[in-house]
């Protein structure tokens, strides 16, 4: 592509011909405030804060100003300042009042921006929008009062393929609202929460119950505490939580997180990755059975609760195709409260499990009655990556400065689990084990690069001995729909399909740090594959903990108890169910 030279604040910048001034500035770390621009979403030109002055003295938005040769831009001239500050004050009128409810914590980009540009947020006062906070299940909520009408949540929901959110009202009463159409429901993916610059749409925080548990623990430090607190971290969290502390996307913080969680007061630090290995084991076994003629094909993954909600609400006819395997956090949570409790000699009722997830839908999943084991939820609390960051910062734990710690014993995981966070990762993990279950031979070349990457739909054919296994991987609801239609037209086209609600898979999840963009997701993804590459143990069925769990515990249980621990079921759901 042809290059164009422009100057921003006197600095020469080489740009792509079609780039906007704002894009060029972002690329060169020149800060121009913006709220409604997102590189993956359609241009809004709503917030009017990305103002710049051109060489002919005109102040204009930089998001829709295409570069042209010789363009000279000032981002901080007196003219710009006056108009930009006025728009920021108007946009963020009364914003500070909602700050306390926000889980963005001390790294809030909006709060930092207000400080840098000296925006009081009190110059103007806004009348209340008389609408209550709306809760979507137990996962997400929005507060019309805090909404700044930037429309990002609406656009990202549209982009995912759901269209649950929309702006309502006119003038200063404009605010986010939901679509009343009974045929449209939220799937709890939480992409809206990862795109809201002001925390108007956010996860339902579980920071305070977790803090209460931790405080209780510290108050009874001398062995009298009656709860055993276990933290388990999802594959994706370690590759993104550094961003909450200003690190680059893709900085692996696993070791630091172990230390941090211990410092917070958790008794044990395990890993959802171990659960992922259990899931792979169960799912690959089922896939092998279905390929061998026992059960419906194609088999479709079910570890993404956003996808499961989508299937249960929009396409209940596809439910028989979903694997019966539970999801990783539920598998490992259940394993700790049964197998591990027995080994460690503790009362399972005293165990409290906190999952740290890149996801908001995992909050919803954790409260399913159908998943209870011996009357206990496998997971008690779910914190998103953002909440985890906020919790650490609140307790003055500066994550990047910590020494690396080691996971506690059943935390052992394989490389197959590490890549669960990336789109195609579950597929790849299952194939590594299913190959063994189908052919009886161990796979030599374990990497399936055709199912990696950011595309919405990926397809590949894998040789299982002489058999061709056809697979597909989809992210985002709009692509679920395409694949489901394809399955209906050609029921034998695929053997196995992976579906994930968020772009790039869990690594781009709705609980991940703000901002969340394809570029950032790609960097985080690299970190996951790097973990896998470096591991000797790369197949779930060879994880010694998993072998111990199945051989020495599960197999000795009656069949119904085994199912309670490993399997789930699905049904058609109504709106808001």
């Amino acid at each position, binding site marked *: 592509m042809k290059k164009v030279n422009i100057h921003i604040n006197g600095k020469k910048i080489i740009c792509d011909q079609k780039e906007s001034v704002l894009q060029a500035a972002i690329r060169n770390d020149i800060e121009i405030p913006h709220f409604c621009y997102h590189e993956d979403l359609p*241009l809004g*030109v*709503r*917030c*009017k*804060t990305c*103002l710049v002055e051109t060489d002919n003295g005109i*102040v204009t*938005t930089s998001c*829709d100003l295409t570069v042209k040769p010789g363009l000279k831009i000032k981002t901080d001239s007196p003219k710009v300042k*006056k*108009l930009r500050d*006025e*728009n920021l004050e*108007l*946009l963020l*009128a009364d914003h500070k009042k909602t700050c306390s409810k926000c889980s963005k914590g001390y790294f809030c980009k909006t709060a930092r921006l207000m400080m840098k540009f000296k925006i009081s947020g009190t110059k*103007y*006062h*806004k009348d209340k929008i008389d609408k209550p906070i709306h809760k979507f299940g137990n996962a997400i909520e929005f507060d019309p009062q805090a909404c*700044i*009408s930037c429309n990002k949540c609406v656009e990202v929901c549209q982009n995912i393929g759901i269209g649950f959110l*929309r*702006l309502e*009202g*006119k*003038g*200063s*009463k*404009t605010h986010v609202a939901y679509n009343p159409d009974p045929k449209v429901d939220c799937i709890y993916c939480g992409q809206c929460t990862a795109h809201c610059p002001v925390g108007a749409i956010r996860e339902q925080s579980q920071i305070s119950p977790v803090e209460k548990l931790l405080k209780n623990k510290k108050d009874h430090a001398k062995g009298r505490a009656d709860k055993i607190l276990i933290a388990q971290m999802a594959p994706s969290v370690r590759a993104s939580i550094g961003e909450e502390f200003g690190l680059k996307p893709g900085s692996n913080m696993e070791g630091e997180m172990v230390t941090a969680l211990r410092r917070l007061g958790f008794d044990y630090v395990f890993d959802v990755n171990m659960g992922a290995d259990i899931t792979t084991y169960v799912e690959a076994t089922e896939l092998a059975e279905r390929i061998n003629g026992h059960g419906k094909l194609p088999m479709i993954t079910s570890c993404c609760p956003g996808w499961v909600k989508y299937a249960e609400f929009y396409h209940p006819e596809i439910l028989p195709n979903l694997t019966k395997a539970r999801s990783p956090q539920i598998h490992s949570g259940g394993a700790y409260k049964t197998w591990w409790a027995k080994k460690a000699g503790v009362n399972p009722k005293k165990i409290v499990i906190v999952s740290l997830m890149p996801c908001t839908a995992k909050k919803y999943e954790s409260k399913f009655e159908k998943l209870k084991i011996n009357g206990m939820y496998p997971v008690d609390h779910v914190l998103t990556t953002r909440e985890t960051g906020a919790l650490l910062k609140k307790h003055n734990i500066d994550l990047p400065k910590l020494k690396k710690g080691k996971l506690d014993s059943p935390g052992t995981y394989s490389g197959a689990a590490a890549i669960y966070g990336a789109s195609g990762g579950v597929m790849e993990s299952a194939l590594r084990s299913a190959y063994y279950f189908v052919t009886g031979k161990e796979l030599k070349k374990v990497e399936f690069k055709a199912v990696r990457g950011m595309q919405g739909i990926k397809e590949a054919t894998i040789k299982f001995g002489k058999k061709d296994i056809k697979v597909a991987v989809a992210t985002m609801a709009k692509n679920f729909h395409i694949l489901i239609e394809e399955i209906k037209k050609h029921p034998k086209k695929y053997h196995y399909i992976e579906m994930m609600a968020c772009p790039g898979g869990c690594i781009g999840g709705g609980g991940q740090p703000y901002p969340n963009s394809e570029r950032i997701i790609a960097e985080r993804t690299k970190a996951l594959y790097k973990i896998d590459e470096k591991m000797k143990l790369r197949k779930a069925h060879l994880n010694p903990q998993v072998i111990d769990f199945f051989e020495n515990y599960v197999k000795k249980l009656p069949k119904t108890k085994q199912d309670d621990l490993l399997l789930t079921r699905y049904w058609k759901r109504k709106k808001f169910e």
Partner: protein
Amino acid sequence: MKNLITKIKEAKLVGRGGACFPTATKWEMVKKAKGNPKYVICNASEGEMGVFKDLYILSKYPAEIVKGMVLAMNYLKTKEAYFNFNSSYYKQTKHKLNPILKKFEKKGYKFTIYKESPSYIGGEETALLNAIEGKRIEPRIKPPFPSDVGLFQKPTLVHNVETLFNIAKVAEGKFKPNRFYCLDGKIKNPGVYYLADNLTIYQILEQTKNLPKYGWFAQIGGGASGLVINATQAKLQKMTGAGSLEVHSTKKKPRALLLEWFKFYAKESCGKCTPCREGSYQLYQLVKKNKQIPWKKIMDIVDVMGKTSFCALGKSIVVPVKSYLTNILKKKI
């Protein structure tokens, strides 16, 4: 015989919605644009106070309006047309309009009536397109312009009622360089008048026997967004925008006038961009809550609305406020 487009050019027709865009150029742009079908839209949704000529024309000349639309449709080789109706206007004129539409529908032309609750933003043509498509009513990013990517992504010709009337008159060879004036306010004979388009404001008031005998000033081209001029300026100033002329007494309280304007802007802002959405609200509050007008604060907001609003609605607020300050109150802020 000359073809219609040449006649339109010679008549120097310009859009009467307020923006005065040359009609022939608009036609040629839509003609050149790729995409099928093309659409013709009659915009019959004036939403600004002081502007009521569309209703008058629709009631009196429905045949001319439809004729103007059919001529445009023939030129663009399309049979698809829409009305964007102020819903109360439709109620008042449908008994006259519908029989005429039926006649053309028999010949294969298709007219779809979209009724909107009266709103100013409906006058912004891209917001109007969103409304007809069932989307949130707010303006679109331009370019692309409706002439290239309009209704349902197809090339679209949007005309105001008066422009269509003029097109019919040009085709009939009966075009006069007149325009419709809406006269309102503190005058004896308010109403719609069809007079030469080059009259001064003073002449208009004189010819319609409306020249006040008290100290007066006027707002022209829109009851909210229009220019404010004093009686002396009225002797030189000609009509602008949507053709409205509202007369006020010089005794009119500034606070009352600002309240009317700002209430209008706050109510009509679609909510898309920050300066118009929040600014119009804050302006209204500033005047409502203060007995003394806080001019400095008001002008800060008016300035940011004028310079950074997304569409013409928010931008236009500078016109009445600044001209009122300069021409009537003689203030410098």
